[in-house]
């Protein structure tokens, strides 16, 4: 543990930056105008593109060193695709992903691998994301081999043991297979694997939503302890607004491929300005009957439109309780409010 904290995790910016540029102070990741479109093709031999699913459409945000940015949205909002695009698991259509100052969308393959070493990802499904034929030790140690981070077998073994201890697993479990672990323990394995290469940034894609309530809190505490010890930054993707409130410093709300509101945690929960954020917050029941029975609910009409055929103008206009004609004409730009608060809504007021 001590070895990890003293290590290069808190190294100055730009350590692996191949171009020698330094990133702006404190910012580890900057996403600029990112778009990820999936083509829809027709035809068998002569495939032609007939449309595109705009999974992510013109999204910009930053993540600071050692902070947690919560990314919330419902299914189909594009939050997972953003995480995958950052990790180079989905191809981008446009925009830039600046990680420690260098644009991942333009780097040559070799340098991407070096940058990837500084990033990790934790997946939602603790069952599907671990190779069932690999032992716990090999799963956790694989990044060490891929990035050639250990010189001797003994060093490799002790590093794997150390990682297992870090995430609260018994190192004697190193030869067990994933099916021998419970869901919570499997998610711990996934976290240990993400930590193996000592990343400065981790994409956490719904890391606790498949876990039981009593186990969720254990994993959240572990993620927070690791952040405090190692200064790692998280992009925390989730649909559970209560957990996002607990773990994030800033929160971005997505709807149908766009960020509609982004602010500090205090601002977004105390003073939500976008009608979608307001509806989302009011839809989450609070575990307290006295308070819950007095809460007003904004029940939205209808379903989330298909990203195949998004509404014209503002993406939320079809379900928005306060939409007017102008909302179906153009997507509103961000308006700045105090408290690092940006809202994409024509109706937003201070």
């Amino acid at each position: 543990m001590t070895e990890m904290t003293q290590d290069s995790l808190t190294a100055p910016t730009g350590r692996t930056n191949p171009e020698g540029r330094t990133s702006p102070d404190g910012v580890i990741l900057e996403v600029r105008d990112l778009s990820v479109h999936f083509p829809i093709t027709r035809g068998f031999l002569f495939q032609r593109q007939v449309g595109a699913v705009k999974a992510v459409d013109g999204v910009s945000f930053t993540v600071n060193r050692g902070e947690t940015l919560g990314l919330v949205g419902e299914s189909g909002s594009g939050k997972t695709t953003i995480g995958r695009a950052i990790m180079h698991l989905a191809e981008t259509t446009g925009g830039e992903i600046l990680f420690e100052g260098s644009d991942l969308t333009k780097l040559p393959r070799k340098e991407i691998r070096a940058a990837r070493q500084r990033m990790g990802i934790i997946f939602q499904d603790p069952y599907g994301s671990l190779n069932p034929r690999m032992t716990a030790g090999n799963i956790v140690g694989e990044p060490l081999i891929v990035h050639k981070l250990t010189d001797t077998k003994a060093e490799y073994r002790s590093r794997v043991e150390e990682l297992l201890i870090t995430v609260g697993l018994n190192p004697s479990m190193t030869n067990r297979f994933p099916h021998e672990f419970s869901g919570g323990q499997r998610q711990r394995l996934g976290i240990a694997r993400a930590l193996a290469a000592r990343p400065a940034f981790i994409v956490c894609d719904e890391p606790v939503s498949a876990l039981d309530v009593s186990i969720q809190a254990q994993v959240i505490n572990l993620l927070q302890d690791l952040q405090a010890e190692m200064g790692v930054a998280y992009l925390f993707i989730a649909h559970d607004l209560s957990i996002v409130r607990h773990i994030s410093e800033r929160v971005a709300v997505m709807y149908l491929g766009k960020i509609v509101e982004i602010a500090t945690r205090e601002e977004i929960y105390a003073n939500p300005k976008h009608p979608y954020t307001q509806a989302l917050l009011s839809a989450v029941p609070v575990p307290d009957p006295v308070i819950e029975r007095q809460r007003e609910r904004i029940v939205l009409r209808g379903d989330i439109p298909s990203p195949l055929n998004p509404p014209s103008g503002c993406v939320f206009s079809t379900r928005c309780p306060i939409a007017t004609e102008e909302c179906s004409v153009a997507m509103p730009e961000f308006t700045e409010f105090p408290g690092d608060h940006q809202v994409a809504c024509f109706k937003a007021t201070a």
Partner: protein
Amino acid sequence: MTQQSDTAGHLLDIRGLATHFATEAGIIKAVDDVSLYLDEGETLGLVGESGCGKSVTALSIMRLVQSPPGQIVSGEVWFQGQDLLALSESGMRQVRGRDIGMIFQEPMTSLNPVLTIGRQLTETLELHLRMSRSAAAARAGELLEMVGIPDAGERLSDHPHQMSGGQRQRVMIAIALSCNPKLLIADEPTTALDVTIQAQVLELLKSLASDLGTALLIITHNLGVVARYADRVNVMYSGKIRESASALDLYAKPRHPYTVGLLKSVPRLDQESEDRLQPIEGEIPDGTSLPSGCAFRNRCRWAVERCAEESPPMFDVEEGHQSCCWEWERVHSAPEVSEAPAS
């Protein structure tokens, strides 16, 4: 033990229900001596984590437990004056869908993919209410409209895959309520849905149930859902009811360590949370290797020696509030100096 000696007054009265599953690893007591009741028009929340036996309890009421490997080994399920467990299979078929409706978690898999929505609605109406085809078709349109599906008349010819998840769950509600049942069992009705759709479906379910006077058994792991909709709550863990109380009492003064742990481990949307969450340490035990005595004792900070020796009975905390814990008098949810967390 406050089980009523007669079923008068209770719509549903379950006594000593036990459902076991035979597996290669041994017998799993999925439901182990469960007693609960539900009054007419009341909403009862049955809360617990995966594997606690809440869904098997619901399936046992409906006698839908697959056998083998499952078997209802003992108990009585009194519903409107008859013991459902003593009914013939054909008698039970009359109850299912007509007197007791059920909604499952997965609207995708609980609807028949090759039948139209309209047919799935009319089937129940023709079978249970002996409606003519045309009368059933007209009623089906009304039911779809009742659950808030736009252009209901035209959607009757749709197949389930043409609808969104939220709409499918609305169709399930329409089918479940089509015969005006006395009791509706909703097993994790919104877990598979998005937050804003969850709110839509739950508000609909609750308002329809109260309009029609249907009693509601909501099975869920979501403490927030229960807080909003349930009159009373039963908390399950490892096959047993651990605590039973009115929703107000359960949240304000829980008297079982598991309930206390559950309430403390979830961050709340309406409050600035503390720096660290307070999880329940340890793992949910495997059904084949439960600890002796109280199944929760390994994770319990109030556990004493007796907990390992004897399984606790239900103690009366006060009128309408029971806790299955030897140490219930010491158990409370007030904050105190927490012991060093085991990592």
